[in-house]
């Protein structure tokens, strides 16, 4: 048995599910990173966007950030319980997380309706009529980024739900809680960057 191989094994002893999830997360970071880079550059290019940023609902955004941070905490608690193979606790914390997800989506929906009411849409023809051509791009990016993130929230919540159901049924596959949790943390991290960029910088 040659030694090189044995010495190599130590550093890649990592559960498949977690490994795959990390790879996926790295890929997702690049996708959202691309959007954020585009946003940052255009933000530097067009100072007029600050005025648009004032129309966003900072309070709602703040609450949402708090909600997501808390949900992250719940997920790690669920993971802690999963390591102890405590199904009831796992279910409890995951349900709390999903509740957070629903609250987040609700608030986001409220924001959207409010902004659409003000005439800020993907293509915002209202702004075009005022001759504010460049500003339409802000809202296009706003809806693109938050919308894409919202889809990830939905996906993450669904993943958590199904994993939890599976764990509760089979009393096994506890490691999947952590994998799904990783994805949820990624959603949180993306929001950590989106929130200040979109809401706070005027």
């Amino acid at each position, binding site marked *: 048995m040659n030694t090189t191989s044995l010495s190599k094994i130590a550093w890649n002893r990592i559960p498949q599910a977690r*490994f795959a999830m990390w790879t996926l997360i790295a890929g997702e970071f690049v996708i959202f990173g691309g959007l954020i880079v585009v946003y940052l*550059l255009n933000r530097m290019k067009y100072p007029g966007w*600050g005025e648009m940023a004032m129309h966003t609902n900072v309070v709602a955004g703040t609450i949402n950030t708090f909600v997501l941070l808390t949900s992250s905490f719940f997920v790690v608690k669920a993971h802690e319980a999963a390591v102890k193979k405590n199904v009831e606790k796992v279910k409890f914390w995951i349900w709390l997380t999903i509740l957070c997800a629903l609250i987040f989506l609700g608030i986001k929906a409220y924001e959207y309706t409010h902004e659409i009411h003000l005439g800020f849409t993907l293509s915002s023809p209202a702004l075009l009529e005022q001759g504010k051509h460049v500003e339409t791009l802000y809202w296009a990016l706003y809806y693109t980024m938050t919308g894409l993130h919202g889809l990830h929230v939905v996906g993450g919540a669904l993943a958590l739900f199904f994993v939890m159901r599976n764990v509760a049924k089979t009393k096994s596959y506890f490691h999947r809680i952590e994998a799904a949790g990783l994805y949820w943390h990624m959603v949180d991290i993306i929001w950590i960057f989106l929130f200040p960029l979109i809401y706070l910088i005027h």
Partner: protein
Amino acid sequence: MSTHGKPQGLEHELWVPAEDDYHGHPNYLKVYIYLLILFAITVFASLIPNPMIVFIVVFSISIIKASMVILNFMHLKWEPNIIWYMLLLALIALAFLFLGLYPDTVPIERFFVPNG
């Protein structure tokens, strides 16, 4: 019967590690409270009138928060190098993208042929 996924009884042979291998756990509550404090700082920092300062403060705090989540909640502290390398490569790619796009986006002023 097909033998997909992990072949039965071959874990140690095929170097498929045990699925729920234990890695260290930080004090999650403490991390969470730190995150909330940083979050509060972010919100108050945004009241500074100068947007440039706001941007610098807020963005750097975001980076700190993100790294805290990654390191503790996602247990990157305990993960093998390969995952660090992957995330690093992602950051490098984004840095290149930013640097490459900057000169073609920010300094350019828009131009349209008048009465065209």
